[in-house]
């Protein structure tokens, strides 16, 4: 998969939530054990496609997320593979105690939760609807797998992976169309990552929507003579520690970029691995200690510092320190 940054011609694809809806529909056709629960947002989470095709296996839970998680846990404990879905901020935050006691603690293996509309790129609906802490919360549940696909190809593949993985899984999905990064057939697995661009001077580790920004940043850096490795860290938990170790060892500088609170997301998890495995200079791009606001997605990403140029700036800071430390 590795290539020079300039070889990526990013075209806009489907939103990852749309890919989730399609993947769920396909899974439903293949496997009668698949059941779906949704909390009055099926037209937004895209589970309505499954609902239409398999009404007897779709459970409308009303606006009652805590009960929905419990019902999903009961179904998943009784021979079903339960996909439970709503906006990430609602199903994770309102259902957190249930995710903890009814799912994680008894380790209900066939329970899969998909939180859509994650991050600030949902736009005009504003902060009450924006999950900016979901990765942190879900990583705080022992035994849970946490996945964050960057595009439609990754989402479709990871929904299949999640369905048959022997542990509860959280998948993060976004609202806006996402640039297509992968070709069909790309393989993804729990604990994996993809090195999208080879590089020697610095490694950009990104997840979700920020993977495309990292690719754009790498292109800009390449033009300026900086060789930036780009890694899509789609598996937030477990982490691909070997990829992180090699990045630290071989490039000596790592910039992590995510559409999540910067103080408790992928960045701190990567930093922990770096601290344990091999020292490297690090910088972080993410949402600072604040809630965002209403606005067009692109304007929000710009205002809150989640674009390629923010990754480039962070990279320059990292490279400055790397030079000083030599």
């Amino acid at each position, binding site marked *: 998969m590795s290539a020079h940054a300039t070889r990526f011609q990013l075209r806009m694809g489907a939103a990852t939530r749309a890919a989730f809806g399609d993947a769920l529909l396909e899974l439903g056709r293949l496997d009668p054990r698949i059941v779906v629960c949704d909390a009055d947002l099926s037209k937004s989470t895209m589970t309505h496609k499954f609902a239409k095709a398999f009404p007897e296996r779709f459970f409308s839970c009303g606006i009652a997320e*805590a009960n*929905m998680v419990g019902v999903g846990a009961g179904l998943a404990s009784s021979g079903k593979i339960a996909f439970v879905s709503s906006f990430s901020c609602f199903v994770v935050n309102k259902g957190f105690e249930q995710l903890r006691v009814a799912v994680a603690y008894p380790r209900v293996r066939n329970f899969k939760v998909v939180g859509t509309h994650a991050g600030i790129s949902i736009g005009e609906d504003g902060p009450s609807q924006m999950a900016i802490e979901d990765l942190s919360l879900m990583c705080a549940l022992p035994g849970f797998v946490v996945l964050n696909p960057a595009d439609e190809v990754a989402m479709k593949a990871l929904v299949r992976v999640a369905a048959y993985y022997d542990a509860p899984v959280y998948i993060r999905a976004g609202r806006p169309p996402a640039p297509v990064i992968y070709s069909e057939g790309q393989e993804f697995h729990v604990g994996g990552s993809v090195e999208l661009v080879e590089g020697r001077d610095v490694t950009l580790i990104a997840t979700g929507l920020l993977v495309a920004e990292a690719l754009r940043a790498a292109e800009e850096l390449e033009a300026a003579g900086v060789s930036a490795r780009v890694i899509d860290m789609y598996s937030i938990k477990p982490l691909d520690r070997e990829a992180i170790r090699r990045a630290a060892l071989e490039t000596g500088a790592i910039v992590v970029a995510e559409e999540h609170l910067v103080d408790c997301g992928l960045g701190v998890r990567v930093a922990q691995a770096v601290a344990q495995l091999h020292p490297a200079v690090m910088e972080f791009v993410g949402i600072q200690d604040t809630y965002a606001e209403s606005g067009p997605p692109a304007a929000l990403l710009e205002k809150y510092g989640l674009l390629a140029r923010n990754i480039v700036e962070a990279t320059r800071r990292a490279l400055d320190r790397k030079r000083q430390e030599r």
Partner: protein
Amino acid sequence: MRHDPKNPHWEDRDRFILSKGHGCPALYAVLAEAGYTPVDQLKTLRKLGSIYQGHPDRRFLPALEASTGSLGQGLSIGVGMALAARLDGRRYRTYVVLGDGESQEGQIWEAAMFAAYHKVDNLVAIVDYNKIQLDGFVKDIMELEPFADKWRSFGWHVIELNGHDIPALKKAFAEAETLKGRPTVVIAHTIKGKGVSFMENEPKYHGIAPTPEEVELALKELA
């Protein structure tokens, strides 16, 4: 209940969830008597490494259907199990025991709404209505009355009975089994500490263990 201690994961077994997980010593005694777990380990209750954890824990006791202890959650899980039975055309029934204090949790009423709306008629909730919770009498903490009316208005078939009357309970469960299109709740009026004069209806014994002297006295009274 249809169950088989020799085959705890028999797919057609009836499901039982003790949603009021703090009542687990009674559940452990029943599981042991029925042959699911060793009787001689009952005295390891709450000790490090014991299968008899402080609240029901499926990791230690795989015969349990759910891990409980955080109140308000068992009914939702039971609803999911009952739905699975319906999808698979299985005849097993799901029984969930709730506390009265637990019924102050909003999730109970989310589950109640859901079960009635989805016509989950292979599910029975049993409320142990002893009118006492940790801080005192239910009426002094957060009154539930009119309790039966609440369940009725949520679309449930309500059976009120004396929770110490075993034939009445059996009759209620048989009645629930014949009822189609609606879930059943058995509101079991009980007396906490029944049979032990100094414990009966005494909030102090909700959350503490009796002293060795009290145990001796209680066992004498119960004999």
